[in-house]
């Protein structure tokens, strides 16, 4: 395309490509073509018309390109948002489904207990109720202790940019508190409203703590129904010492107070499907002599580790 004889003095190739680019952005081919035309060497007649047609076609292709590029960009942009919206929608739908199913389960549970009351005699029902209250299957009401544990400050390290997590409450802390409450004679415990049963789990999943797979967040409130001196027993026991140490060392918050008139909801589900009597029951036939039985069963709160 470049004719070496045409304008040889103008077509000096500068070694610096960028300088040339800035100085003369127009394709040099146009100047060459113009020079050819000036010398009468350019296309003429039918060829010229054909070339004009090809130019029109090229421009049409260009418009086409612009149109599809625009459409593509418009279609691409919300792709990420769309995916997120769909996920959020799914989560909300599933959540409402879960709520509906839970409501139905509660209603069916009520039906079952009503039928049971109607079928069984008063003494059997009373015994069943006691057992349910002890195992966490029925809501209970009473006085006891309210223990509140909260995260300490979690400053961001200015060098690494990582958040310090050592002042966070860990699952083991909650396990220890729950076990100490059982040991101090608690008959029913709920963590942030989640009633603990014999098969409850308190586990860490990343930064969240899950109680029976339901996330709980700081501050963690352990409500326990038990003897009147439960709060003092907890506060003066090994757990109280442990948490006071945490307070002084990491700035976590800790409080154990007596509370009255607490209502603990029933546990959502008892995952215990099959039970086998480990030892022959005593002659009296009473399988659970009071609150003492629930004390050792709290150890499964470490379950799943």
């Amino acid at each position, binding site marked *: 395309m470049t004719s070496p004889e045409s304008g040889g003095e103008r077509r000096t190739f500068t070694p610096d490509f960028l300088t040339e680019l*800035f100085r003369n952005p127009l394709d040099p081919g146009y100047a060459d073509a113009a020079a050819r035309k000036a010398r009468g060497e350019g296309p003429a007649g039918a060829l010229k018309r054909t070339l004009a047609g090809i130019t*029109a076609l090229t421009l049409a292709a260009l*418009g086409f390109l612009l*149109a599809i590029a625009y459409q593509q960009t418009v279609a691409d942009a919300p792709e990420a948002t769309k995916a997120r919206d769909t996920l959020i929608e799914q989560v909300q739908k599933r959540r409402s489904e879960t709520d509906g199913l839970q409501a139905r389960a509660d209603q069916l549970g009520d039906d079952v207990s009503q039928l049971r009351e109607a079928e069984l005699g008063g003494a059997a029902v009373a015994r069943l109720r006691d057992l349910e209250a002890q195992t966490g299957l029925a809501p209970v009401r009473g006085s006891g202790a309210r223990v509140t544990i909260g995260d300490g400050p979690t400053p961001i390290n200015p060098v690494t940019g990582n958040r310090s997590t050592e002042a966070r409450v860990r699952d083991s802390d909650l396990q220890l508190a729950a076990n100490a409450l059982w040991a101090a004679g608690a008959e029913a415990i709920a963590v942030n409203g989640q009633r603990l049963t014999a098969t409850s789990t308190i586990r860490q999943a990343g930064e969240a703590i899950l109680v029976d797979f339901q996330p709980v967040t700081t501050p963690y409130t352990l409500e326990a129904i038990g003897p009147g001196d439960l709060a003092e027993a907890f506060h003066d026991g090994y757990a109280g010492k442990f948490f006071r140490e945490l307070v002084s060392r990491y700035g976590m918050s800790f409080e154990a107070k007596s509370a009255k008139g607490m209502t603990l909801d029933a546990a959502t589900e008892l995952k215990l499907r099959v039970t086998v009597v480990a030892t022959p029951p005593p002659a009296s036939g009473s399988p659970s002599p009071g609150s003492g039985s629930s004390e050792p069963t709290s150890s499964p709160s470490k379950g799943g580790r």
Partner: protein
Amino acid sequence: MIAVLALVAGVVLGIVLHPTVPPALQPYLPIAVVAALDAVSGGVRAKLDGIFDDKQFVVSFIANVVVAALIVYLGDQLGVGGQLSTGVVVVLGVRIFGNVAAIRRHLFRA
């Protein structure tokens, strides 16, 4: 005049047909557009300079788009696709800018 009509026809065609771009070609679309804009700005400037040439325009348009896509493809294969895309965009951007500045001088005498 014909050029503008052809351009509009192309846009209308693109909207009406609404073709789906194959996923393999999608990364090259933006680069192809930039290359095409470079060819167009060069063509318009040449027109205003009075040295427009059909053959030169068509060849520069096709060559620009193909070469730009090729460079990006090569970069993708070598693992430097992003950097090469940036290089293509910088070079073509400079040319577009210079040509548009020349067009501006033609149109506004400033």
